[in-house]
C-alpha cells in the first residue's frame, strides 16, 4: 500500500443558522489545499457533529456560525468530543464573532477563531501548521 496520510477535516454548521456560503467557501479552500473535507450540512446539533466526526475519523472540525450562538454551540462541540473520548479532534471556529468572545472560546478549548478579514490562505496555513494527520 502506498502510505499517504492526508489531513481530514469536517466543516460543520451548528445550530439554527442557515447561512452556509462561508462554510462552503472554506470547504473548497480546504479541498484545494489537498485536504479531505466532510461537509455536515445545515442545522446540526453539537452531538450530531461529534458523532459524524467520529465516524469519519477527522483530525479537525471547523465550525461556522453567523447567528450569534457561538458561545453556547462551539464549547458544546468541544465538551461532547471529550465525553466521547475524542478530545484529540481539534476544533476551530469562524464567522461573525465579536472580539471579546474570542478569549472565552479559546478558554473553552476552541483552538483558533477566524473572523471576517481572515484570508483563506491564513486559515489553510493555520491548519497545515497545527493539525497533523492521525497516526495509529
Amino acid at each position, binding site marked *: *500500500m*502506498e*502510505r*499517504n*496520510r*492526508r489531513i*481530514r477535516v469536517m466543516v460543520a454548521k451548528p445550530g439554527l443558522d442557515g447561512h452556509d456560503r462561508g462554510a462552503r467557501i472554506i*470547504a*473548497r479552500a*480546504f*479541498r*484545494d*489545499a*489537498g*485536504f*479531505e*473535507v*466532510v*461537509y*455536515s*450540512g445545515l442545522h*446540526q446539533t453539537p*452531538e*450530531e457533529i461529534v*458523532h*459524524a466526526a*467520529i*465516524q*469519519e*475519523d477527522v483530525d479537525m472540525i471547523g465550525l461556522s456560525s453567523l447567528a450569534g450562538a457561538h458561545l453556547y454551540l462551539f464549547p458544546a462541540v468541544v465538551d461532547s468530543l471529550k465525553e466521547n*473520548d*475524542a478530545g484529540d479532534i481539534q476544533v476551530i471556529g469562524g464567522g461573525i464573532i465579536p472580539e471579546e468572545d474570542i478569549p472565552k472560546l479559546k478558554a473553552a478549548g476552541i483552538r483558533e477563531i477566524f473572523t471576517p478579514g481572515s484570508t483563506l490562505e491564513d486559515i489553510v496555513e493555520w491548519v497545515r501548521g497545527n493539525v497533523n*494527520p*492521525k*497516526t*495509529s
Partner: protein
Amino acid sequence: MTSTTETVDKVISGDVRAVARVIRDIDDGIPEVRDVLKALYPHTGRAYVIGVTGAPGVGKSTLVDQMIAHLRAKDKSLGILAVDPTSPFSGGAILGDRVRMQRHSMDEGVYIRSMATRGHFGGLTQSTRSAIDVLDAMGKDIIIVETVGVGQDEVDVVRSAHTTVICVIPGMGDDIQAIKAGILEVGDIFLINKADREGSDKTMSDLRLMIDMDQKKHEGGTWRPPILKAQAVFDQGVAELLDEIDKHAEYLVSVYGNLRFRSRKDKVREELSEMVKNRLIEAVMAGITGSGEFEDTVEAIVRGELDPYTASDNLILPKLALNDTG
C-alpha cells in the same frame, strides 16, 4: 500505537472509533493495517452488500437515506460507504453525501463513512473492499456502497456487491450513453429516479430494450433486471426497490446455494487477482517513481532529448525483463 489484537477485538465488538481508524488506515495505505485485515477476514462474509451507483445528481444519496430509514424500521444494522471523487488537481475532496443522510447521524445502528477516490492505482476498489470487510466484521447486517458510476474503478467496486442498483434519471441523454458507460452488465436492478420528470416512460422502454438485449451476458442466469420508477425524495418507490433487492438475494441463493461470495471460485479469483495486481503495481511503481532516475528522465523529456516511449522502456525493461511487446 494500539496492538493489532486490541484493534481487532474492538472492531469485532463494534467500537466506532476503532472502526473509523482502521478505515482511515486503509485509506492512507498504512502497511500495518494489513495485519488487522488478515485477522478480521474470518469474521467477514456475513453482511449483505448493496451497491448504488449512477451519474452525479441522480439522487443516490437521497435514495440511500430513504433506504436507511426503511431498513432501520426492520431493525437491520447498517454500514454506509459513500465514495466521492478526489480532485485531480489538489488531491483534496469534498465529501458531501452525509448531508442527505444527516437525520441518521445519531442512530447507533447506522455507521456512515465518506471515502474519497484518491486516485491511486486501482486502489479505490481495494480500499473500498477492505472497508466493506471492516464494516462486515463489526457486525453490520447490510452494507450500502454508494459510488459515482462513471469509471471502471466504480464499476469494479459494485462488483463486490451482492446486488447492484443502477440509478438513472429521465432525459439524461439517449440510450447510447448508458451503453457507453458499460454499466448495464453490472446492474441487477435499475431505478429511474425523479420519475415525475418528462421522459421517464421513454427511459424505461430504452432501458428495457437494452437490458434484454444484454441479458445473455448477465451472470448466465435467469435474473431479468427489473426497472423501477421512484421519487426518492418523497419516499416513493423505495419500499419496492427493497422488495426487489430481497428477490435478487433469493435468486442468488437459488443459483449458488448461499450468499457467501467467498465460497465462489469466480469471486475469490477476481478478488485475489485484483489484490495481487494492485500490490505488484504499487511495489514496482514505488521503485520507479521514487528513484532519481525517474526525475532525470522527466527532465530529459522536457528538454526534448528523449521521447516518453523510449524513456518508459529504459525505466521498465531492466526491472521487469519484459520484451518490447510486453
